[in-house]
């Protein structure tokens, strides 16, 4: 017999549907970019420079979102830019999550020397200004996809470690952990079966947030020209180029910016939405 509390049904919330749709669209665009992009993203045509988007007067047919100052198609470049953005988001986000959450879980649950060591590392890490740190790292490692991923993981693992450590500490003080200990469980097994499921909702939220942040970091690095080779289209690179001609051709700046904005927003909303829907305990 359950108590009088109503069974709560959880519909797909608008935030989950909207953010999910945008990200699905983006993943599809990234995967299918070579086939669906209307133009070659690298093809320059100086006679077609700074053409406005399709609804404005003077638009060139076929160039739906206009062209930049070198006559390259903005839409095609955004589609191809999504490939790099999403690759970085997925790989860097997951790696950061795995490393940060593992360290945080160990620090928060095992405590003692492990905690002291990891916590001091977090403190030292967080004393570095992150953007400067990433630029420095890329400068040392040299530009490229792998360098971007390494930079994000190296800088952002503390974000996970700090939060998950606090959560694991809070959960570790609960009586059900004591019960598991009395029942003869090892520390490791207690950590994985009792603590991990309870910090998982937080991990999911942080992971999606981190994916959004990775997209931004990648854009920042492209903006300062430290991302992958300058030939490949990136959102950050497009924003940097668009900035120089914003009074003559706003669309070169605005479209990649809006795409970036929606993507980062969608990632964070996806995390919240998933938590609301699947966390067994409504908090």
């Amino acid at each position: 017999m359950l108590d009088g509390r109503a069974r709560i049904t959880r519909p797909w919330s608008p935030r989950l549907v909207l953010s999910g749709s945008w990200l699905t669209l983006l993943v599809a665009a990234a995967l299918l970019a070579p086939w669906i992009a209307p133009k070659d993203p690298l093809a320059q045509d100086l006679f077609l420079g700074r053409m406005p988007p399709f609804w404005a007067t003077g638009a060139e047919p076929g160039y739906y979102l206009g062209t930049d100052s070198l006559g390259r198609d903005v839409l095609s470049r955004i589609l191809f830019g999504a490939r790099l953005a999403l690759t970085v988001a997925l790989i860097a986000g997951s790696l950061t999550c795995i490393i940060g959450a593992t360290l945080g879980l160990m620090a928060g649950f095992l405590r003692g020397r492990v905690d002291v060591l990891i916590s001091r590392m977090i403190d030292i890490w967080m004393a570095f200004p992150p953007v400067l740190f990433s630029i420095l790292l890329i400068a040392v490692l040299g530009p490229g996809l792998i360098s971007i991923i390494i930079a994000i993981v190296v800088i952002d693992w503390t974000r996970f470690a700090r939060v998950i450590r606090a959560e694991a500490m809070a959960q570790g003080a609960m009586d059900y952990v004591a019960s598991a200990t009395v029942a003869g469980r090892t520390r490791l097994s207690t950590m994985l079966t009792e603590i991990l499921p309870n910090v998982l909702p937080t991990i999911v939220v942080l992971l999606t947030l981190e994916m959004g942040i990775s997209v931004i970091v990648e854009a920042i690095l492209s903006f300062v020209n430290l991302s992958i080779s300058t030939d490949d289209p990136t959102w950050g690179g497009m924003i940097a180029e668009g900035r120089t001609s914003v009074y003559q051709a706003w669309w070169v700046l605005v479209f990649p910016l809006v795409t970036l904005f929606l993507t980062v927003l969608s990632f964070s909303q996806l995390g919240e939405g998933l938590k609301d829907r699947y966390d067994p305990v409504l908090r």
Partner: protein
Amino acid sequence: MSFLSIRNLSASLKGRPDRILRAVSLEVAAGEVRGLVGESGAGKSMIGKAVLGTLPQSVVITGGQIILDGTDLLTLPPAVRRTRIGQLCALIPQDPLTALNPSRRIGPQITNRLVDILRWSRRDAQTRARDLLAEVQISDPDRVMRSYPHELSGGMRQRILIASAFAAEPKLIVADEPTTALDVTVQKQILKLIADMQARHGTAILFVTHDLGVVSKVCQSLSVLYAGLVLEDTSIRDFFAGPRHAYSRALLAATPKYTDPDGSLTPVPESVIAATRAEVAAADDAMSDRGRNV
């Protein structure tokens, strides 16, 4: 031979001289219910935690023995100790709201213990869990086993925890203030349930509480603690007939009376506290002297 025998157990905070337990000795015979009373911070929960091996990392045991079923737990290697405690002991925790894992269903939380400790088959464990839930008067065990903790009320969760504690047929249960977090009406049911289950299963219980009313209902013997020192170790009948120690007398006098619900509370007199403190200091001196002689 007692089932649990604690001898001269001392504990203090790691890296600091502050003593938490001062040469505590007590015995729990098989099937006996021993109460452990004292005010907040007297170390009563710490004794329970020391037995179960769940002391916080900041507390270290500095001396003494915890002899469980003939073996001193403190001399065993950690892994062996853990299994031994798991086979012989269980815990009824204080707060039923935090004692069940919120993200796992009830059923596995009861059966996992049976499968892990006693190597039962899943199906046997399921049947056993269902029987136990029925035994603690839960009317729809199957449905409850599929529920998450937050879907159940506090009293229900405490009954589940009691069922879970008795599930592996332990020889000793540490009940750490099992009724403190419940409201008074539920408290009475839960106490009766623990007493019934104890009588039926013949389990020894170390019953930690600050409530002498609770002690009088379920315990056969009693240890009174102050600042980690056992002041009095007596049977329930002797205690309620007239405690020997001045602090115990004051504690008994401080219990609110049902017959006089509007009467003002009687605090433990300053003089008694001062005398008891002096006794604690004397015990400390005696301990450090012994340390010097050895």
